[in-house]
């Protein structure tokens, strides 16, 4: 029952921040809204689980988890432990076999999933880039319906790139010429310019050199603030300590 009721108000909340032409009269509802929103975790996983084909065991054992504003969470563990499974589930790229996800206390209706992903952005280990320049790639998200209310802002992008030590000339380079580290920086800036509330990072630095690792970490630090949250999956315990306040280890589908 509560699922259907809660999902009704979802789009208004999500659409608010992107609404163009906001006036001063909107300030009061915004404060009320902010107060209401902060009462809830950003993402809440309620009894979610996922298993492989029937009888072959769990990919993710039943999990209850709340990700609150200001949370920096790292997950380590052996490969095949279900770290990516959990992250993809939180990004709603895969469906749980049971349980549900809530965003700011509200269930997420099918048609609002793109909106949810605007707020909760998943970064894959291997960045997928479009054929074209770095700037073409950065402009791409704005061609999607969900970002129709906002526009590509070169200045904001340049500020982000600065954190990763990339000069203006980086924008004109062709995506196919980029090194692994540069590609990951591009993928990250492409997501961060959209101001997501939650970042889900799936071993973003697994195959990168130390300098690129530093750049990626600096970018994420620059984006983070107390209203936001991140989950960083890493194979490197030292990095996990560096990038997070709370660390979990995942083994055989169980988060500990």
């Amino acid at each position, binding site marked *: 029952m509560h699922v259907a009721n809660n999902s009704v108000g979802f789009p208004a909340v999500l659409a608010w921040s992107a609404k163009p032409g906001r006036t001063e009269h909107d300030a009061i509802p915004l404060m009320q809204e902010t107060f209401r929103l902060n009462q809830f975790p950003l993402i809440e996983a309620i009894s979610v689980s996922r298993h492989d084909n029937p009888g072959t065991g769990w990919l993710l054992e039943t999990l209850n988890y709340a990700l609150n504003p200001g949370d920096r969470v790292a997950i380590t563990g052996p490969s095949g432990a279900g770290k990516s499974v959990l992250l993809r589930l939180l990004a709603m790229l895969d469906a749980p076999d049971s349980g549900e996800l809530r965003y700011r206390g509200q269930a997420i209706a099918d048609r609002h*999933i*793109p909106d949810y992903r605007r707020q909760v952005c998943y970064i*894959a280990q*291997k960045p*997928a880039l479009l054929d074209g320049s770095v700037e073409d790639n950065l402009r791409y998200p704005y061609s*999607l319906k969900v970002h129709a209310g906002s526009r590509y802002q070169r200045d904001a992008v340049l500020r982000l790139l600065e954190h990763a030590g990339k000069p203006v000339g980086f924008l004109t380079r062709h995506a196919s010429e980029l090194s692994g580290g540069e590609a990951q920086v591009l993928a990250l800036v492409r997501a961060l310019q959209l101001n997501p509330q939650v970042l889900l990072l799936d071993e973003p630095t697994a195959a990168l050199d130390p300098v690129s690792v530093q750049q990626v970490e600096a970018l994420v630090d620059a984006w983070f603030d107390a209203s936001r949250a991140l989950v960083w999956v890493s194979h490197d315990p030292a990095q996990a300590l560096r990038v997070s306040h709370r660390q979990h280890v995942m083994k055989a589908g169980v988060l500990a």
Partner: protein
Amino acid sequence: MNYQSLSNLDIAIAAALIFINGALSVCLKLGLGRQLLIAALRTVVQLLAIGYVLSWIFANAQWYVVLPVMCLMTLIAGLSAAGRGKRTYAGQRLDSIVSIWVSSWLVAAVGLFAVIRIHPWYEPQYAIPILGMILGNTLTGVSLGIERMIHELTAGRGQVEMTLALGGTRWEAAQLAARQAVRAGMIPTLNQMSVVGLVSLPGMMTGQVLAGESPLQAVRYQIIIMFLIAAASGLGTVVAVLLTYRRVFSPQHRFLAWRLHRRD
């Protein structure tokens, strides 16, 4: 009839020409003798069989004879369109049949009733060969379209999921692959249309000329057929690609990559 009727003796004379190929195979040690024999026999048996079937249908020109034959032809086309490609998904066969059925019958209906205006509506002399030509080309389009869609989505999985992760809808994530797939399905027909009469003389037109029809009349028929083929093939490809899209993207804007599996 102002054309030469052919007897079995005439076929025997033509068959003797195959022996030239046989002799070549033996002299050059190609090892094709056996295959050649089988291929020649299949040509004779398959064409004779269809000749008898068509004679029988023409002699019993009733709707309850013609309609099932047309259904059977469509079904076979649909099934053979689904048989290609390294990867497949559960339901590909049904999607092929549906897309071929819808597009071919719709276009054939327009061709037969609005353009050629046959009477009665099931006149097999027109209905069967025209549906057959449309089916043959639509099946190529549908099969290439689905195959390409599966390929693009499998190879471009990273990009598809990147678009979804950035908040793209399932259609925004699929449209690049879908466009490539529709293009791939329509290219053979486009190529055929642009070289017809220059590189190849179509079989139907040649047949009509051999049967004593004036070349100009034969050409008119051929033009109509080319347009029917292009329309059906384009429509069929689009329907097939959309059906594939619905199979591998959920209403929750998820890409169900696991549904695309290797053919067993």
